[in-house]
């Protein structure tokens, strides 16, 4: 069994589903011979041909709009946006059509499509290559938003996303595309959507995060442990719809919660989680719910990039703040 990276797991999942399901097609800019700018589709065109791994003209509105048409007529398009910052032209077709086609037609038509994009900061790329826009997608009814944080979850969740009969926005944390290697069997076993994954059990404080921030959050948990603080770490994975149950359960146990995300704070997904706690978890809270997030600014160009990204240090600090309350 191979030791693979997150981006290789994406490729493996795509290849697996394309073998299993002849209706799956990959559709995007530079996904063919070039295998995508991050190599996520490397080798797929060679294996499946240019009628299933399709290089498109440079037009995101077209990509998203055609995807709706293709998905409505029996194909399962897996779209790749080259970077999350170039998904904005897709918003109209995703939210006004992909997310609504089944609803609009009372189930007569549907849009089983996946909109993939490398997502998030930390790779020292130019502007628009480092955003975290999951909250933008998460607010729109009718589309799921899924974010893997490890090779195995990338494989299992992408399989589930492709097989899901409804549209899924699948955001891939590019910063950790090649961070860890993991043994992932190409067994076609999907992982469940709409549920959180508890990565680490703890009793003193619950750290909730997703995507690349899982790295800093786990580092923070280890650092806290050294100081005798037991932190539970939850990878939300599906940010819409949200598995609030698992999070509330954890906070019932710990009484403290720190939510970590790279995206700007204001109206980020962290707000929804904290709001859920302010409603369903309020009696269990021993401390204010803290959010360690990106600032409400544009992601700086790379010389300042690391001043923007939440650090393990900030997470530890916030966790300790919550522990100041008995």
């Amino acid at each position, binding site marked *: 069994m191979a030791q693979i990276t997150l981006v290789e797991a994406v490729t493996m999942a795509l290849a697996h589903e394309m073998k299993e399901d002849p209706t799956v*097609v990959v559709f995007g800019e530079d996904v063919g011979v070039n295998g995508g700018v991050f190599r996520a589709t490397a080798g797929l065109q060679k294996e499946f041909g240019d*009628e*299933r791994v399709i290089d*498109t*003209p440079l*037009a995101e*509105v*077209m990509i*998203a*709009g*055609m*995807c*709706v*048409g*293709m*998905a*409505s*007529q*029996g*194909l399962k398009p897996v779209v790749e946006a080259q970077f999350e910052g170039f998904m904005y032209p897709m918003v*109209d*077709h995703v939210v*006004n*059509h992909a997310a609504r086609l*089944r*609803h*609009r*037609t*009372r*189930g*007569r*038509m*549907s849009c089983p499509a996946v909109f993939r994009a490398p997502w998030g900061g930390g790779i020292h790329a130019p502007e628009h290559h480092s955003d975290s826009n999951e909250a933008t997608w998460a607010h729109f*009814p*009718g589309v799921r938003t899924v974010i893997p944080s490890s090779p195995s979850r990338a494989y299992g969740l992408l399989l589930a996303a492709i097989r899901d*009969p*409804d549209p899924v926005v699948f955001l891939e944390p590019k910063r950790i595309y090649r961070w860890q290697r993991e043994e992932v069997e190409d067994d076609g076993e999907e992982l469940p959507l*709409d549920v959180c994954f508890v990565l680490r059990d703890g009793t003193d404080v619950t750290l909730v995060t997703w995507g690349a921030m899982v790295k800093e959050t786990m580092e923070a948990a280890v650092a806290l442990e050294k100081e005798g603080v037991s932190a539970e770490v939850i990878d939300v994975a599906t940010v819409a*719809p*949200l598995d*609030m149950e698992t999070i509330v359960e954890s906070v019932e146990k710990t009484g403290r919660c720190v939510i970590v995300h790279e995206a700007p704070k204001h109206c980020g997904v962290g707000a929804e989680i904290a709001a859920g706690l302010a409603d369903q978890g309020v009696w269990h809270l021993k401390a204010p719910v803290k959010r360690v997030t990106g600032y409400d600014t544009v992601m700086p160009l790379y010389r300042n990039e690391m001043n923007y990204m939440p650090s393990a240090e900030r997470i530890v600090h916030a966790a300790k703040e919550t522990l100041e309350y008995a």
Partner: protein
Amino acid sequence: MAATIASFKVDYFQFLDETGQLVDGTQIPALARDMKQLTSLYELMTLTRVFDKKAVALQRTGKLGTYASSLGHEAAHAAIGSAMREEDCFCPMYREYAAQFYRGVKMSEVLMYWGGDERGNDFSGPAHDFPWCVPIATQCLHAAGAAMAYKLNEQKRVAVTVVGDGGSSKGDFLEAINAASAWKLPLVLVIVNNQWAISVPRSKQNSARTLAQKGIAGGLPSIQVDGNDLIATRWAMDKAISAAREGRGASVIEMLTYRLSDHTTADDARRYRPEDEVDTAWKKEPLVRLRNYLSDQGEWDEVKEEQLLKDCADRVNAAVEEYTDRVENDPQPIEAMFKYMFKNLPHHLEEQLEIAKRFPAKGGHH
């Protein structure tokens, strides 16, 4: 070196003039002699107009929501629908009723849609046809995507879409032309140029001589026809559809017509549109000229006309019955707001459904 490396042209076609005479000096399409076809299409156009009048009346009396009239567009829409095969995919905008009726959509379903009931979109036309599309021009890319699916699946199916003069300014339409060019898609892009985009006249969309020439951007065959001449609109559609079906790619057809009604029942065109322009347009409208032609051919007369109008009125009334009966006696339950969001209702929507059931609107929708 200065050399012309590419030249293009846009041709205009009209076969039946405003009085209903065949234009001479032109090779007339066979359709002009197919009285059975012409008669049934005339009947479809008439039915559509009778339906349209009724729908507007229903809105005025509060029995229907905002409604977009198709008055004056019948020759364009009837040609589009009748030129297609069942397996082809139609991606409409919102007023192409004649095309949809031909494809099996029921009048009662059109009324359901504008009557605020999503079940109108679950219509009796081909299950693969797109529902009405509100965000202007987005349907053009859905059609391009459908065409792409047919091409990849090696099906001999064609996608047909309609956009207005206003919508032809939007990137969605322009990118669809480019996509059609890139992949040689089995697609027909019809611009139904009715001279107005709500209050904005055609002249403000751009200063080009035609809208058809937008197809030249992708090197697509692009023509303009008299959109009130059924023989021209249908001939153009047949030509474009067979080209698409036979793998010769997409085309653009600009059909010149006129919006004889307000934009929708929510609009009052008198605010921005000179009455005399409308009067002039009425002289070119599509039904009269076709009726005159059929009469000259001895295929039509007062008696038939009267009979037809009576039949249409009956069918339309029956449709209205069906509509009102359904929305009043068999309204959608509150569940309907939730159950089609996803194939399987997620946990959070189950909870919200309970709240919705617990707090229904007081006194229905008014």
